[in-house]
Structure formats: structure tokens, C-alpha cells
């Protein structure tokens, strides 16, 4: 599915002394099958942007189009089209068991019996939960990190054409993070699922994203290929972001080895560079 934002503006608490411009004339197109990451400092409009894309926040000005169709004033959310994972998704849990919570959207889409069971188990595995052991548990007996995974599984379980995820890896442990990113990449690769992910971890985005949008004060400050923007440390710092570790390392090495090294995003390449310097430098 293609999502177009056409000259979108949106303020919170408009007409009061506390009015804040959350989005300011944003135009953006998300192409089908794309892996787009959105970064920016806190309060720059990232989450608002996701809400507008999903159609749950109505802009004060501008148009949102899904596959060329302008959204009506009260769009109906259709599971299977757009899956939205909120920032604190544990707040969205409501069923008595983990199974029922994850099964909510697939059930509404008409799945039942064995197919429903398989879908739920698949979604739980996607987020690194032991499906057999957790399905009968009460969501509220889980830790916050586990609750987030259940909520995320509920979003994924609908197998939506578009996944909009707001900091999906916050609070996840590193092993689960890596695993989730791999699963998301596989869904994109195998099913062509469009992915829009808000994140702060540039190392993660370097692995995940093809395209990066940087938000600043409600506006699009930069929009381009992720591997190019993520190597631009000055640009990232300007907007309160930090370059991926390998890029920072290349800068440190350039400083102390007395020659310039081009930034790399890949750990293997970084290791090659270190080896090269050790062989080349004194005592190597």
C-alpha cells in the first residue's frame, strides 16, 4: 500500500496559549514495500507523523491518501491493511489471556480454529515469546518488556500490508531486538510488507532501513537513502542524533591514525579496517 501525506499540518491544543505545532507542512510518500525509518529528537513530531499516516490523527490541513484514496473524515481502521504499534503498546492489552489478545485482530478478519491458532503462535514467535508457555498466561502477569512483545505480536498477527511501529525495540533485551529486526526484514522480503519504524538507535536503523527521514520541530529536515545519511555525523548531530558506532569509530580512528578513513556501517568492514591499521601502524 502506498501512503501519501500532502502538505500536512497539525497542532495540539490549538486556540489555547499552549498550542504546539506538532507537524508543519509535511509532505511525504511511503512507497509499497519500502523500509522507512523516522528519527529525530524527542518532541520533533515522529509519533504524530505515524498517527497521521495510520489515519487515527486527523490533520488540521493537508490530505492523507492510502493507495491514492483520500481518507474520509472518519476512516475505519481495517485490520490487515495497516498495523500500528504504539509507543507504550502495553497500554493496549485488554484480554484475559495472551492468546486472546493476539487473536483479536485475526478473529475480526475471520480466522478461526487451527488457522487462528497457527497465526497466533507465529506472531508470538516473531516477538521471541515461547508461544506454548505464554499463550494461556494473563497479559498483566507479565513484565513490561514481555507485555510490549505481546502487544507487538497482536499488531503483527493481522499480517497487515503496512506496519507502522513506534520504537518497537525500546525495552526489549538485545537478543530479542536482533531477532525482531530479522523477522521484520523477512516479512518485508517475503511478503513485501511496507515498514515505517520510529527509532532512536542508529545502529539498529543502519541494519533495518533503506530510507531515513529526520524530523525536526514538526518538519522533515532530511529525507534520503539511510546508508548515506547515517554516515553523515554532522547532519545527525545537528538534529540531536548519534551516528552508528562504526561511523563514530571511523572518525576516532581518522583522528588518531593521522589519515582519513571513509565511514563504514558494517561490523565486518570495521574489523577489516582495524586489522589494516594494525598491520600498517607502528609495531604491527
Amino acid at each position, binding site marked *: 500500500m502506498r501512503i501519501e501525506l500532502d502538505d500536512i499540518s497539525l497542532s495540539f491544543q490549538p486556540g489555547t496559549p*499552549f498550542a504546539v505545532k506538532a507537524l508543519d507542512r509535511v509532505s511525504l510518500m511511503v512507497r509499497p514495500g519500502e523500509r522507512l525509518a523516522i528519527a529525530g529528537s*524527542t*518532541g*520533533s513530531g515522529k509519533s504524530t507523523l505515524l498517527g497521521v499516516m495510520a489515519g487515527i490523527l486527523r490533520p488540521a490541513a493537508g490530505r492523507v491518501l492510502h493507495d491514492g484514496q483520500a481518507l474520509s473524515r472518519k476512516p475505519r481502521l481495517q485490520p490487515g491493511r495497516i498495523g500500528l504499534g504504539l509507543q507504550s503498546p502495553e497500554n493496549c492489552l485488554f484480554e484475559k489471556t495472551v492468546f486472546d489478545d493476539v487473536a483479536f485482530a485475526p478473529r475480526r478478519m475471520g480466522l478461526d480454529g487451527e488457522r487462528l491458532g497457527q497465526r497466533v503462535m507465529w506472531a508470538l514467535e516473531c516477538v521471541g515469546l515461547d508461544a506454548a508457555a505464554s499463550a494461556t*498466561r494473563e497479559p498483566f502477569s507479565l513484565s513490561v518488556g514481555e507485555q510490549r512483545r505481546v502487544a507487538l505480536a497482536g499488531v503483527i498477527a493481522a499480517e497487515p500490508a503496512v506496519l507502522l511501529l513506534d520504537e518497537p525495540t525500546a525495552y526489549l533485551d538485545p537478543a530479542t531486538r536482533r531477532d525482531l529486526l530479522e523477522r521484520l526484514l523477512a516479512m518485508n522480503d517475503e511478503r513485501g510488507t511496507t515498514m515505517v519504524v520510529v527509532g532512536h538507535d542508529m545502529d539498529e536503523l543502519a541494519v533495518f532501513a533503506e530510507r531515513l527521514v529526520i524530523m525536526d520541530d514538526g518538519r522533515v529536515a532530511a529525507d534520503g537513502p539511510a546508508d548515506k545519511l547515517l554516515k553523515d555525523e554532522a547532519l545527525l548531530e545537528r538534529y540531536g542524533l548519534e551516528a552508528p*558506532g562504526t561511523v563514530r569509530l571511523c572518525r576516532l580512528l581518522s583522528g588518531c591514525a593521522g589519515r582519513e578513513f571513509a565511514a563504514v556501517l558494517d561490523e565486518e568492514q570495521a574489523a577489516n579496517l582495524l586489522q589494516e591499521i594494525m598491520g600498517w601502524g607502528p609495531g604491527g
Partner: protein
Amino acid sequence: MEQSIISLKNVSYAYPHAAGDQRVALSDITLDIREGEFIGLVGANGSGKSTLVRMLNALLVPVSGEVRVDGLLTSDRANHNRIRETAGMVFQNPDSQIVATSVEDDIAFGLENLGLPVEEIERRITTAARRFGVAGLLEREPHWLSGGQKQRVVLAGVVALEPRVLILDEPTSMLDPCSRRRFHSLVEDLWRGGATIIYITQLMDELAFADRILALDAGRVVFDGRPRDIFSSDELLERISLEPPLAVRLARTLARRGCELSPVPLTLSQLAEEICG
């Protein structure tokens, strides 16, 4: 011997649930935390980290065993106010901790409960708001702030209370990298000023300067030692779902290729220095 500010003796805990859903959250934990220590608490999701820190300011009391904070038993309700003044806590989800309808009132809430004079309250609000970059948000309604801004408001509110022990449960998970760095240097300042810090995180990079790392797995302490030593056991790292920082990962790759770095660098600057040195 130095005085322990926090001590746990054979602490076990299980959340009360419907039958069949009994799960032990903490199992026979004994440990002492000395005043002024910087402790990094790590472990997989569901390993008991949040349960453990809730024991440290009497939000939970052990099913068996005992917890003392500055000598006071947490099982005695009469001690709870003093314990909570000693140990301040920042929760995982800022929404669970915001109580007022303006940012300023929210930061003031704890201070008013301490019964401080008005001028002192105002001074502390101004200082904390400036430190955490929320001075421009004081009149705003917390409800309308972004996740990261809320997290900073909550931090300001707790630090304003100047607790001797500061418990931080994944406090930077929603912060952008720049705010995260600023937050780290603030915590480091508080620690150098004598505060005891207990810091839960999934990111080893955040713990480079910790004195001591505690790792939990299924409610038990499976590691208690220096940050450097936790990376020596692959089996342990896997068990607690921890990933070593980039510098350590690169040093390991080099080691596999036949170039050992000694000592193993923990940060990128250390790595660059060792390579170029």
C-alpha cells in the same frame, strides 16, 4: 567495614496470581549495596529486574527473607516514608508516574510531600527543570508531551527530591541519543556527588563506568562483578540475552582472526587508542 545502604537477605518473591499461573519472580537473593556504588542491573525481559528494584523502596516486600534500606526494614510499614525518601525511583513507563496537570506541578508534587519551604521548592524545580531541559515546558500539560519529553519530566521530578539512592528502570529508552548522552553525564555527576545509583538497562554501552554489574536470570543473581568480566563467558551472555558493546564485539572478531587486544577495550575510544597507540 563500609556501611551497606541496601541489603537483601534470602529474598524471594512470587506475584499472587490465579491458580496455575504461579511464577517465582525472585528466588533467594542475598546482596549488599554500599553507599556511593554505581550498579548496573541487567537481564532478559522477565528476569526479575523490575521486581527486584521494587523491593528497594518498599513497593513490594519479600514473601520470605528481608530487605533493609539504610538499616530500615521494608516489611515495617512505619518505615515506608523514610525508605522512599532515601530511595527515589524512575519507572519504565513515564505515564505511570505523572500525576499533575502541569509539568511544574508534577515536579513539585514530591517536593511538597516532603514539606519543604516554598522558596526551596521553587529553587529545586528551576534547577531540575534546567538540568533536564524541560524549563520551557513547565506550564504545559504532561498529557500532551511526547514520550521522550515525559521521560525527562519524570526524571526531573525524582532528581529534585535529591534521594541518596536513585533507582532508574530503563530511564533512557525513549530518549533521543543527544538527550541520552546528556542524561548519562547528569547521572554520572550525581554519582560523583555521592549518590548511590541502581541503573537497569538493556544497553551495555550505558554501563561503561559502572562499578559493578548484577545480572539476573529467572529471578536469580547469576553474575555480580566488574563490567569487563561479564563479557568473558559466552554462555552467560546468552543466558541473560545480553549483547557486548561494539568495541568488545570488534575486539572479539579481531581475536578470532589472530590479533588479541589486551586489555579488551570496552568503549570505542579505548579501542581506537589501543589500535593506534
